[in-house]
Protein backbone atom coordinates (compact mmCIF):
# COMPACT_ATOMS: atom_id res chain seq x y z
CA UNK A 1 0.00 0.00 0.00
CA UNK A 2 1.20 3.49 -0.78
CA UNK A 3 1.63 5.71 2.18
CA UNK A 4 0.68 8.78 0.21
CA UNK A 5 0.19 10.03 -3.30
CA UNK A 6 3.22 12.16 -3.88
CA UNK A 7 6.24 12.19 -6.14
CA UNK A 8 8.19 14.45 -3.85
CA UNK A 9 11.78 13.37 -3.15
CA UNK A 10 13.34 15.08 -0.17
CA UNK A 11 16.78 16.37 -1.21
CA UNK A 12 18.71 19.50 -0.62
CA UNK A 13 19.24 21.41 -3.86
CA UNK A 14 18.89 24.85 -5.36
CA UNK A 15 15.70 23.76 -7.11
CA UNK A 16 14.21 22.35 -3.90
CA UNK A 17 14.95 25.60 -2.13
CA UNK A 18 13.18 27.74 -4.72
CA UNK A 19 9.80 29.08 -3.76
CA UNK A 20 6.99 26.84 -5.13
CA UNK A 21 5.49 29.75 -7.05
CA UNK A 22 8.82 30.36 -8.79
CA UNK A 23 8.81 26.74 -9.87
CA UNK A 24 5.28 27.08 -11.21
CA UNK A 25 6.47 30.09 -13.22
CA UNK A 26 9.38 28.01 -14.50
CA UNK A 27 7.08 25.17 -15.60
CA UNK A 28 4.68 27.53 -17.34
CA UNK A 29 7.50 29.41 -19.08
CA UNK A 30 9.01 26.14 -20.33
CA UNK A 31 5.64 25.00 -21.66
CA UNK A 32 4.89 28.32 -23.35
CA UNK A 33 8.27 28.43 -25.04
CA UNK A 34 8.01 24.80 -26.17
CA UNK A 35 4.59 25.31 -27.69
CA UNK A 36 4.91 28.82 -29.11
CA UNK A 37 8.46 29.14 -30.32
CA UNK A 38 8.46 28.89 -34.12
CA UNK A 39 11.84 27.18 -34.44
CA UNK A 40 11.43 23.45 -35.03
CA UNK A 41 14.15 22.31 -32.63
CA UNK A 42 13.15 24.45 -29.63
CA UNK A 43 11.42 21.70 -27.60
CA UNK A 44 14.33 19.31 -28.19
CA UNK A 45 16.78 21.96 -27.14
CA UNK A 46 14.75 22.70 -24.00
CA UNK A 47 15.01 19.06 -22.95
CA UNK A 48 18.76 19.16 -23.54
CA UNK A 49 19.69 22.53 -22.09
CA UNK A 50 16.96 23.09 -19.48
CA UNK A 51 15.09 20.07 -18.21
CA UNK A 52 17.86 17.48 -18.08
CA UNK A 53 20.42 19.80 -16.44
CA UNK A 54 17.75 21.00 -13.99
CA UNK A 55 16.97 17.43 -12.97
CA UNK A 56 20.68 16.87 -12.32
CA UNK A 57 20.98 20.17 -10.48
CA UNK A 58 18.02 19.15 -8.29
CA UNK A 59 19.77 15.82 -7.59
CA UNK A 60 16.70 13.91 -8.72
CA UNK A 61 18.26 12.84 -12.05
CA UNK A 62 17.78 9.12 -11.42
CA UNK A 63 14.15 9.54 -10.37
CA UNK A 64 13.45 11.88 -13.25
CA UNK A 65 14.95 9.52 -15.86
CA UNK A 66 13.05 6.61 -14.37
CA UNK A 67 9.76 8.55 -14.56
CA UNK A 68 10.62 9.67 -18.10
CA UNK A 69 11.40 6.14 -19.26
CA UNK A 70 8.50 4.40 -17.56
CA UNK A 71 5.69 6.94 -17.77
CA UNK A 72 6.37 9.82 -20.07
CA UNK A 73 8.11 8.10 -23.01
CA UNK A 74 5.47 5.37 -23.50
CA UNK A 75 2.65 7.92 -23.47
CA UNK A 76 4.48 10.35 -25.72
CA UNK A 77 5.59 7.49 -27.98
CA UNK A 78 2.01 6.41 -28.44
CA UNK A 79 1.03 9.95 -29.32
CA UNK A 80 3.87 10.10 -31.83
CA UNK A 81 2.77 6.89 -33.57
CA UNK A 82 -0.86 7.96 -33.77
CA UNK A 83 0.00 11.32 -35.27
CA UNK A 84 2.60 9.91 -37.63
CA UNK A 85 0.10 7.43 -39.05
CA UNK A 86 -3.09 9.41 -39.04
CA UNK A 87 -1.97 12.91 -39.97
CA UNK A 88 -3.05 13.34 -43.59
CA UNK A 89 -0.41 15.90 -44.61
CA UNK A 90 2.50 15.89 -46.99
CA UNK A 91 3.31 14.31 -50.32
CA UNK A 92 6.59 12.53 -49.80
CA UNK A 93 5.57 9.04 -48.61
CA UNK A 94 8.27 7.37 -46.61
CA UNK A 95 6.53 4.05 -46.10
CA UNK A 96 3.08 2.50 -46.10
CA UNK A 97 1.43 0.33 -43.55
CA UNK A 98 -1.62 -1.24 -45.19
CA UNK A 99 -3.74 1.79 -46.05
CA UNK A 100 -1.83 4.19 -43.77
CA UNK A 101 0.75 6.49 -45.32
CA UNK A 102 3.59 7.91 -43.33
CA UNK A 103 4.91 11.02 -44.98
CA UNK A 104 7.95 13.08 -44.17
CA UNK A 105 5.70 15.93 -43.05
CA UNK A 106 3.49 13.84 -40.80
CA UNK A 107 6.59 12.33 -39.22
CA UNK A 108 8.10 15.77 -38.60
CA UNK A 109 4.80 17.09 -37.26
CA UNK A 110 4.29 14.13 -34.95
CA UNK A 111 7.84 14.32 -33.65
CA UNK A 112 7.64 18.00 -32.82
CA UNK A 113 4.24 17.59 -31.12
CA UNK A 114 5.46 14.63 -29.12
CA UNK A 115 8.49 16.62 -27.98
CA UNK A 116 6.27 19.51 -26.89
CA UNK A 117 4.16 17.19 -24.79
CA UNK A 118 7.35 15.63 -23.47
CA UNK A 119 8.57 19.06 -22.33
CA UNK A 120 5.26 19.79 -20.67
CA UNK A 121 5.01 16.52 -18.78
CA UNK A 122 8.67 16.44 -17.77
CA UNK A 123 8.55 20.00 -16.53
CA UNK A 124 5.60 19.07 -14.33
CA UNK A 125 7.32 15.89 -13.19
CA UNK A 126 10.37 17.88 -12.19
CA UNK A 127 8.13 20.29 -10.31
CA UNK A 128 6.38 17.47 -8.42
CA UNK A 129 9.68 15.74 -7.65
CA UNK A 130 11.14 18.85 -6.05
CA UNK A 131 8.09 20.39 -4.35
CA UNK A 132 6.36 19.03 -1.27
CA UNK A 133 2.58 19.24 -1.75
CA UNK A 134 2.03 20.81 1.67
CA UNK A 135 4.75 23.37 1.00
CA UNK A 136 3.08 24.28 -2.28
CA UNK A 137 -0.33 24.60 -0.66
CA UNK A 138 0.84 26.63 2.35
CA UNK A 139 2.62 28.98 -0.01
CA UNK A 140 -0.44 29.41 -2.23
CA UNK A 141 -2.69 29.81 0.83
CA UNK A 142 -0.40 32.55 2.10
CA UNK A 143 -0.80 34.25 -1.27
CA UNK A 144 -4.57 34.25 -0.97
CA UNK A 145 -5.75 30.80 -2.09
CA UNK A 146 -8.74 29.87 0.13
CA UNK A 147 -7.78 27.48 2.94
CA UNK A 148 -10.65 25.15 2.06
CA UNK A 149 -9.26 24.74 -1.44
CA UNK A 150 -5.82 23.66 -0.32
CA UNK A 151 -7.36 21.41 2.33
CA UNK A 152 -9.35 19.58 -0.35
CA UNK A 153 -6.26 19.06 -2.51
CA UNK A 154 -3.96 17.84 0.26
CA UNK A 155 -6.49 15.67 2.06
CA UNK A 156 -7.48 14.02 -1.23
CA UNK A 157 -3.85 13.17 -1.91
CA UNK A 158 -3.61 11.59 1.53
CA UNK A 159 -6.99 9.96 1.86
CA UNK A 160 -7.17 8.34 -1.59
CA UNK A 161 -4.58 5.68 -0.67
CA UNK A 162 -6.58 5.02 2.50
CA UNK A 163 -9.79 4.55 0.52
CA UNK A 164 -7.90 2.28 -1.85
CA UNK A 165 -6.77 0.19 1.09
CA UNK A 166 -10.31 0.01 2.39
CA UNK A 167 -11.57 -1.06 -1.02
CA UNK A 168 -9.13 -3.96 -0.83
CA UNK A 169 -10.43 -4.88 2.62
CA UNK A 170 -14.02 -4.69 1.43
CA UNK A 171 -13.25 -6.89 -1.58
CA UNK A 172 -11.55 -9.43 0.65
CA UNK A 173 -14.49 -9.35 3.07
CA UNK A 174 -17.05 -9.86 0.30
CA UNK A 175 -15.00 -12.61 -1.29
CA UNK A 176 -14.75 -14.43 1.99
CA UNK A 177 -18.55 -14.51 1.94
CA UNK A 178 -18.51 -16.14 -1.45
CA UNK A 179 -18.64 -13.18 -3.81
CA UNK A 180 -17.05 -14.01 -7.14
CA UNK A 181 -14.82 -11.22 -8.30
CA UNK A 182 -13.18 -13.12 -11.13
CA UNK A 183 -14.62 -14.41 -14.37
CA UNK A 184 -16.23 -12.78 -17.37
CA UNK A 185 -16.99 -9.11 -17.68
CA UNK A 186 -20.63 -9.03 -16.55
CA UNK A 187 -19.91 -11.10 -13.48
CA UNK A 188 -17.07 -8.80 -12.52
CA UNK A 189 -19.13 -5.67 -13.09
CA UNK A 190 -21.92 -7.19 -10.97
CA UNK A 191 -19.48 -7.90 -8.19
CA UNK A 192 -18.76 -4.18 -7.91
CA UNK A 193 -22.21 -3.50 -6.45
CA UNK A 194 -21.62 -5.03 -3.02
CA UNK A 195 -18.30 -3.21 -2.96
CA UNK A 196 -19.63 0.25 -3.77
CA UNK A 197 -22.22 0.30 -0.96
CA UNK A 198 -19.90 -0.11 2.02
CA UNK A 199 -17.21 2.00 0.43
CA UNK A 200 -19.34 4.99 -0.56
CA UNK A 201 -21.64 5.00 2.46
CA UNK A 202 -18.69 4.46 4.76
CA UNK A 203 -16.88 7.40 3.20
CA UNK A 204 -19.95 9.64 3.55
CA UNK A 205 -20.23 8.85 7.25
CA UNK A 206 -16.56 9.65 7.62
CA UNK A 207 -16.98 13.03 5.99
CA UNK A 208 -19.21 14.22 8.83
CA UNK A 209 -16.82 13.01 11.51
CA UNK A 210 -13.85 14.54 9.78
CA UNK A 211 -15.75 17.82 9.44
CA UNK A 212 -16.33 17.79 13.21
CA UNK A 213 -12.69 16.93 13.84
CA UNK A 214 -11.33 19.83 11.81
CA UNK A 215 -13.96 22.23 13.16
CA UNK A 216 -12.82 21.24 16.64
CA UNK A 217 -9.42 22.52 15.62
CA UNK A 218 -10.61 25.89 14.48
CA UNK A 219 -10.64 25.23 10.74
CA UNK A 220 -13.26 27.90 10.11
CA UNK A 221 -11.62 30.39 12.44
CA UNK A 222 -11.77 33.90 11.12
CA UNK A 223 -8.41 34.86 12.54
CA UNK A 224 -5.52 35.18 10.12
CA UNK A 225 -3.95 31.77 9.64
CA UNK A 226 -0.29 31.21 10.42
CA UNK A 227 1.99 28.53 9.08
CA UNK A 228 4.31 26.16 10.93
CA UNK A 229 6.87 26.16 8.17
CA UNK A 230 8.49 29.25 6.83
CA UNK A 231 8.50 28.97 3.06
CA UNK A 232 11.41 31.06 1.78
CA UNK A 233 10.73 33.61 -0.91
CA UNK A 234 14.05 35.30 -1.58
CA UNK A 235 14.91 38.21 -3.83
CA UNK A 236 16.40 35.62 -6.23
CA UNK A 237 12.94 34.05 -6.40
CA UNK A 238 11.36 37.35 -7.23
CA UNK A 239 13.97 38.19 -9.87
CA UNK A 240 13.59 34.73 -11.43
CA UNK A 241 9.82 35.11 -11.57
CA UNK A 242 10.18 38.43 -13.37
CA UNK A 243 12.66 36.95 -15.83
CA UNK A 244 10.42 33.95 -16.50
CA UNK A 245 7.39 36.18 -16.93
CA UNK A 246 9.33 38.27 -19.47
CA UNK A 247 10.33 35.10 -21.36
CA UNK A 248 6.70 33.94 -21.39
CA UNK A 249 5.42 37.30 -22.63
CA UNK A 250 8.15 37.47 -25.27
CA UNK A 251 7.26 34.07 -26.65
CA UNK A 252 3.57 34.98 -26.78
CA UNK A 253 4.39 38.28 -28.54
CA UNK A 254 6.69 36.54 -30.99
CA UNK A 255 3.97 34.03 -31.80
CA UNK A 256 1.38 36.78 -32.34
CA UNK A 257 3.79 38.87 -34.39
CA UNK A 258 4.69 36.00 -36.70
CA UNK A 259 1.15 34.85 -37.33
Amino acid sequence: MHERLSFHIKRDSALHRLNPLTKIFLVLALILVAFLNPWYWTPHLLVLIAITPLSLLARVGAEYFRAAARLILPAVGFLFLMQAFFQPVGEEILFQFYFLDVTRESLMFAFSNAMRIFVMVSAFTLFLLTTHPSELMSDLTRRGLPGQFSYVIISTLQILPQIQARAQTTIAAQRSRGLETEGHFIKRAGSLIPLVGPLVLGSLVEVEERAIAIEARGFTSKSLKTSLHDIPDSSIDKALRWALAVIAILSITLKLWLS
Partner: protein
Amino acid sequence: MAFVNLQNVTYQYPLTKSPVLQDITLQIEEGEFVAIIGPNGAGKSTLCYALGGFVPHFFKGEFSGMVEVAGKKSSDATLDEWVLTVGLAFQNPFNQISGAKYTVFEEIAFGLENTGVPREEMKSRVEQAMAQTGITDLSDRSPYTLSGGQQQRVALTSILVMQPRLLVLDEPTSQLDPIGTREVFGVIRAMAERGMTVVMAEHKMEWIAQFADRVIALKDGATLLEGTPQEVLTSDLLTENGFGISRYTSVAREARRRKRWRADVPLPVTLDQAAEGFAFTPPS
Protein backbone atom coordinates in the same frame (compact mmCIF):
# COMPACT_ATOMS: atom_id res chain seq x y z
CA MET B 1 -21.28 29.92 39.70
CA ALA B 2 -20.00 26.56 38.57
CA PHE B 3 -17.29 26.34 35.92
CA VAL B 4 -19.52 24.30 33.63
CA ASN B 5 -23.19 24.99 33.87
CA LEU B 6 -25.95 23.26 31.92
CA GLN B 7 -29.47 24.51 32.45
CA ASN B 8 -32.47 22.57 31.16
CA VAL B 9 -30.72 21.43 27.99
CA THR B 10 -33.15 19.77 25.61
CA TYR B 11 -32.20 18.86 22.09
CA GLN B 12 -33.77 17.02 19.20
CA TYR B 13 -31.91 16.06 16.02
CA PRO B 14 -33.53 17.02 12.73
CA LEU B 15 -35.86 14.37 11.27
CA THR B 16 -36.26 12.52 14.58
CA LYS B 17 -39.44 12.16 16.61
CA SER B 18 -38.25 12.50 20.18
CA PRO B 19 -35.60 14.60 21.90
CA VAL B 20 -32.27 12.87 22.55
CA LEU B 21 -31.45 15.12 25.52
CA GLN B 22 -34.29 15.92 27.88
CA ASP B 23 -34.03 18.75 30.35
CA ILE B 24 -30.45 18.12 31.46
CA THR B 25 -29.21 20.32 34.27
CA LEU B 26 -25.66 19.83 35.40
CA GLN B 27 -22.86 21.68 37.19
CA ILE B 28 -19.18 20.83 37.04
CA GLU B 29 -16.46 22.50 39.08
CA GLU B 30 -13.10 23.50 37.66
CA GLY B 31 -10.62 20.60 37.88
CA GLU B 32 -13.34 18.01 38.27
CA PHE B 33 -13.31 14.76 36.29
CA VAL B 34 -16.82 13.69 35.35
CA ALA B 35 -17.62 10.43 33.62
CA ILE B 36 -20.82 9.90 31.69
CA ILE B 37 -22.11 6.38 31.32
CA GLY B 38 -25.18 5.04 29.61
CA PRO B 39 -26.39 2.41 27.18
CA ASN B 40 -26.21 3.08 23.43
CA GLY B 41 -28.61 5.81 22.42
CA ALA B 42 -28.76 7.30 25.90
CA GLY B 43 -27.48 10.64 24.60
CA LYS B 44 -23.85 10.46 25.74
CA SER B 45 -22.39 11.59 22.42
CA THR B 46 -25.02 14.29 22.00
CA LEU B 47 -24.23 15.63 25.47
CA CYS B 48 -20.57 15.74 24.45
CA TYR B 49 -21.51 17.60 21.27
CA ALA B 50 -23.60 20.04 23.29
CA LEU B 51 -20.63 20.79 25.56
CA GLY B 52 -18.35 21.08 22.52
CA GLY B 53 -20.72 23.55 20.83
CA PHE B 54 -21.48 21.24 17.89
CA VAL B 55 -25.04 21.15 19.18
CA PRO B 56 -26.53 23.52 18.12
CA HIS B 57 -23.84 25.12 15.92
CA PHE B 58 -23.02 22.15 13.67
CA PHE B 59 -26.02 19.86 14.01
CA LYS B 60 -29.23 21.68 13.31
CA GLY B 61 -32.43 20.72 15.12
CA GLU B 62 -34.32 22.01 18.11
CA PHE B 63 -32.16 23.19 20.97
CA SER B 64 -33.30 24.84 24.15
CA GLY B 65 -31.66 25.57 27.45
CA MET B 66 -28.17 26.87 28.14
CA VAL B 67 -24.61 25.59 28.04
CA GLU B 68 -22.18 27.80 29.90
CA VAL B 69 -18.44 27.19 30.31
CA ALA B 70 -16.05 29.55 32.11
CA GLY B 71 -18.73 32.21 32.20
CA LYS B 72 -19.47 32.13 28.46
CA LYS B 73 -22.62 30.81 26.84
CA SER B 74 -22.24 28.54 23.80
CA SER B 75 -25.22 30.20 22.13
CA ASP B 76 -23.44 33.58 22.26
CA ALA B 77 -20.26 32.28 20.61
CA THR B 78 -19.56 31.01 17.14
CA LEU B 79 -18.24 27.47 16.84
CA ASP B 80 -14.71 28.56 15.98
CA GLU B 81 -14.60 30.73 19.13
CA TRP B 82 -16.13 28.02 21.28
CA VAL B 83 -13.56 25.33 20.34
CA LEU B 84 -10.92 27.49 22.01
CA THR B 85 -12.76 27.04 25.31
CA VAL B 86 -13.94 23.45 24.96
CA GLY B 87 -11.83 20.78 23.24
CA LEU B 88 -13.58 17.71 21.88
CA ALA B 89 -12.06 14.35 20.98
CA PHE B 90 -14.12 11.39 19.91
CA GLN B 91 -14.17 7.69 19.13
CA ASN B 92 -12.66 7.04 15.75
CA PRO B 93 -8.96 7.89 15.79
CA PHE B 94 -8.62 7.63 12.01
CA ASN B 95 -11.32 10.21 11.32
CA GLN B 96 -9.76 12.71 13.68
CA ILE B 97 -6.59 12.90 11.61
CA SER B 98 -7.04 16.06 9.57
CA GLY B 99 -5.59 14.59 6.36
CA ALA B 100 -4.03 17.94 5.63
CA LYS B 101 -0.66 17.17 7.17
CA TYR B 102 2.19 14.80 6.48
CA THR B 103 3.82 14.46 9.89
CA VAL B 104 2.55 14.15 13.45
CA PHE B 105 4.23 17.42 14.37
CA GLU B 106 2.42 19.27 11.57
CA GLU B 107 -0.81 17.50 12.43
CA ILE B 108 -0.69 18.76 16.01
CA ALA B 109 0.16 22.26 14.80
CA PHE B 110 -2.90 22.30 12.49
CA GLY B 111 -5.25 23.81 15.07
CA LEU B 112 -2.70 26.45 16.02
CA GLU B 113 -2.17 27.41 12.36
CA ASN B 114 -5.92 27.77 11.93
CA THR B 115 -6.27 30.02 14.93
CA GLY B 116 -3.33 32.20 14.01
CA VAL B 117 -0.77 31.35 16.69
CA PRO B 118 2.66 32.85 15.83
CA ARG B 119 5.27 30.34 14.58
CA GLU B 120 7.69 30.35 17.53
CA GLU B 121 4.93 29.96 20.08
CA MET B 122 3.37 27.26 17.91
CA LYS B 123 6.54 25.19 17.88
CA SER B 124 7.09 25.38 21.61
CA ARG B 125 3.44 24.58 22.36
CA VAL B 126 3.48 21.56 20.04
CA GLU B 127 6.70 20.26 21.60
CA GLN B 128 5.35 20.79 25.10
CA ALA B 129 2.05 19.06 24.31
CA MET B 130 3.83 16.09 22.72
CA ALA B 131 6.05 15.76 25.77
CA GLN B 132 2.98 15.79 28.03
CA THR B 133 1.28 12.99 26.13
CA GLY B 134 4.49 11.06 25.53
CA ILE B 135 4.44 11.05 21.74
CA THR B 136 7.60 13.06 21.07
CA ASP B 137 9.14 10.02 19.36
CA LEU B 138 6.31 9.98 16.79
CA SER B 139 7.02 13.57 15.72
CA ASP B 140 8.22 12.86 12.17
CA ARG B 141 5.98 9.88 11.39
CA SER B 142 3.04 10.12 9.01
CA PRO B 143 -0.17 10.13 11.08
CA TYR B 144 -1.56 7.42 8.80
CA THR B 145 1.15 4.90 9.59
CA LEU B 146 0.41 4.90 13.33
CA SER B 147 -1.51 2.33 15.35
CA GLY B 148 -5.00 3.17 16.62
CA GLY B 149 -3.75 3.97 20.11
CA GLN B 150 -0.99 6.18 18.76
CA GLN B 151 -3.43 7.94 16.42
CA GLN B 152 -5.82 8.57 19.28
CA ARG B 153 -3.00 10.02 21.38
CA VAL B 154 -2.11 12.28 18.44
CA ALA B 155 -5.78 13.33 18.22
CA LEU B 156 -5.83 14.09 21.96
CA THR B 157 -2.59 16.04 21.73
CA SER B 158 -3.98 18.01 18.78
CA ILE B 159 -6.83 19.14 21.02
CA LEU B 160 -4.73 19.68 24.16
CA VAL B 161 -2.25 21.87 22.31
CA MET B 162 -5.07 24.36 21.79
CA GLN B 163 -5.20 24.71 25.61
CA PRO B 164 -8.96 24.37 26.10
CA ARG B 165 -10.44 25.11 29.53
CA LEU B 166 -12.62 21.98 29.36
CA LEU B 167 -11.73 18.69 27.68
CA VAL B 168 -14.62 16.57 26.40
CA LEU B 169 -13.88 12.97 25.44
CA ASP B 170 -16.52 10.91 23.68
CA GLU B 171 -15.61 7.24 24.19
CA PRO B 172 -11.97 7.84 23.34
CA THR B 173 -11.01 4.16 23.58
CA SER B 174 -14.05 2.38 22.18
CA GLN B 175 -12.30 1.48 18.93
CA LEU B 176 -8.96 0.57 20.43
CA ASP B 177 -7.38 -2.70 21.47
CA PRO B 178 -6.33 -3.21 25.11
CA ILE B 179 -2.83 -1.85 24.49
CA GLY B 180 -4.17 1.24 22.75
CA THR B 181 -6.73 1.69 25.53
CA ARG B 182 -4.00 1.62 28.16
CA GLU B 183 -1.90 4.15 26.21
CA VAL B 184 -4.81 6.56 25.84
CA PHE B 185 -5.91 6.25 29.46
CA GLY B 186 -2.32 6.94 30.45
CA VAL B 187 -2.63 10.31 28.72
CA ILE B 188 -6.03 10.97 30.28
CA ARG B 189 -4.64 10.14 33.71
CA ALA B 190 -1.84 12.66 33.19
CA MET B 191 -4.41 15.29 32.23
CA ALA B 192 -6.52 14.55 35.28
CA GLU B 193 -3.50 14.77 37.57
CA ARG B 194 -2.62 18.11 36.01
CA GLY B 195 -6.01 19.38 37.17
CA MET B 196 -7.69 19.60 33.77
CA THR B 197 -11.48 19.73 33.84
CA VAL B 198 -12.60 16.65 31.94
CA VAL B 199 -15.94 15.23 30.86
CA MET B 200 -15.62 11.73 29.47
CA ALA B 201 -18.32 9.48 28.03
CA GLU B 202 -17.07 5.94 28.49
CA HIS B 203 -18.16 2.33 28.77
CA LYS B 204 -15.14 0.90 30.53
CA MET B 205 -16.18 0.96 34.19
CA GLU B 206 -12.86 -0.19 35.59
CA TRP B 207 -11.13 2.81 34.10
CA ILE B 208 -13.87 5.22 35.13
CA ALA B 209 -13.54 4.03 38.72
CA GLN B 210 -9.86 4.98 38.64
CA PHE B 211 -10.26 8.51 37.30
CA ALA B 212 -13.67 9.98 37.87
CA ASP B 213 -14.59 12.27 40.74
CA ARG B 214 -18.20 11.93 39.77
CA VAL B 215 -20.23 9.66 37.52
CA ILE B 216 -23.43 10.58 35.73
CA ALA B 217 -25.61 7.77 34.38
CA LEU B 218 -27.76 8.79 31.44
CA LYS B 219 -30.80 6.92 30.25
CA ASP B 220 -33.03 8.02 27.38
CA GLY B 221 -31.53 11.48 27.42
CA ALA B 222 -32.11 12.16 31.11
CA THR B 223 -30.00 11.77 34.24
CA LEU B 224 -30.75 8.49 35.98
CA LEU B 225 -28.09 8.55 38.68
CA GLU B 226 -25.36 10.87 39.80
CA GLY B 227 -22.69 10.47 42.46
CA THR B 228 -19.24 9.10 43.24
CA PRO B 229 -18.00 6.17 41.16
CA GLN B 230 -18.48 3.91 44.18
CA GLU B 231 -22.14 4.90 44.59
CA VAL B 232 -23.12 4.93 40.95
CA LEU B 233 -21.14 2.03 39.56
CA THR B 234 -22.33 -0.43 42.20
CA SER B 235 -25.95 0.65 42.14
CA ASP B 236 -28.53 -2.02 41.40
CA LEU B 237 -30.29 0.52 39.18
CA LEU B 238 -27.55 0.12 36.58
CA THR B 239 -28.16 -3.53 35.80
CA GLU B 240 -31.92 -3.01 35.99
CA ASN B 241 -31.62 -0.35 33.27
CA GLY B 242 -29.38 -2.26 30.91
CA PHE B 243 -26.04 -0.63 31.75
CA GLY B 244 -22.89 -2.67 31.55
CA ILE B 245 -21.12 -2.98 34.88
CA SER B 246 -17.55 -3.75 35.86
CA ARG B 247 -16.63 -7.42 36.10
CA TYR B 248 -15.42 -6.84 39.67
CA THR B 249 -18.80 -5.50 40.68
CA SER B 250 -20.68 -8.29 38.97
CA VAL B 251 -18.54 -11.05 40.49
CA ALA B 252 -18.87 -9.50 43.96
CA ARG B 253 -22.60 -9.09 43.52
CA GLU B 254 -22.92 -12.74 42.67
CA ALA B 255 -20.76 -13.54 45.71
CA ARG B 256 -23.03 -11.41 47.88
CA ARG B 257 -26.09 -13.25 46.57
CA ARG B 258 -24.43 -16.51 47.65
CA LYS B 259 -23.52 -14.94 51.02
CA ARG B 260 -19.80 -14.94 50.28
CA TRP B 261 -19.40 -11.19 50.39
CA ARG B 262 -19.71 -9.41 53.71
CA ALA B 263 -22.83 -7.28 53.86
CA ASP B 264 -21.01 -4.34 55.46
CA VAL B 265 -18.39 -4.11 52.69
CA PRO B 266 -19.49 -2.07 49.70
CA LEU B 267 -19.35 -3.72 46.29
CA PRO B 268 -16.02 -3.14 44.53
CA VAL B 269 -15.44 -1.23 41.31
CA THR B 270 -11.71 -1.74 40.98
CA LEU B 271 -9.43 -4.76 41.04
CA ASP B 272 -7.87 -3.66 44.35
CA GLN B 273 -11.20 -3.28 46.11
CA ALA B 274 -12.31 -6.68 44.81
CA ALA B 275 -9.12 -8.37 45.93
CA GLU B 276 -9.43 -6.78 49.37
CA GLY B 277 -13.09 -7.68 49.69
CA PHE B 278 -12.55 -11.29 48.77
CA ALA B 279 -9.51 -11.57 51.04
CA PHE B 280 -11.52 -10.42 54.06
CA THR B 281 -14.44 -12.74 53.38
CA PRO B 282 -14.12 -15.74 55.65
CA PRO B 283 -14.75 -18.98 53.78
CA SER B 284 -17.96 -20.59 54.97
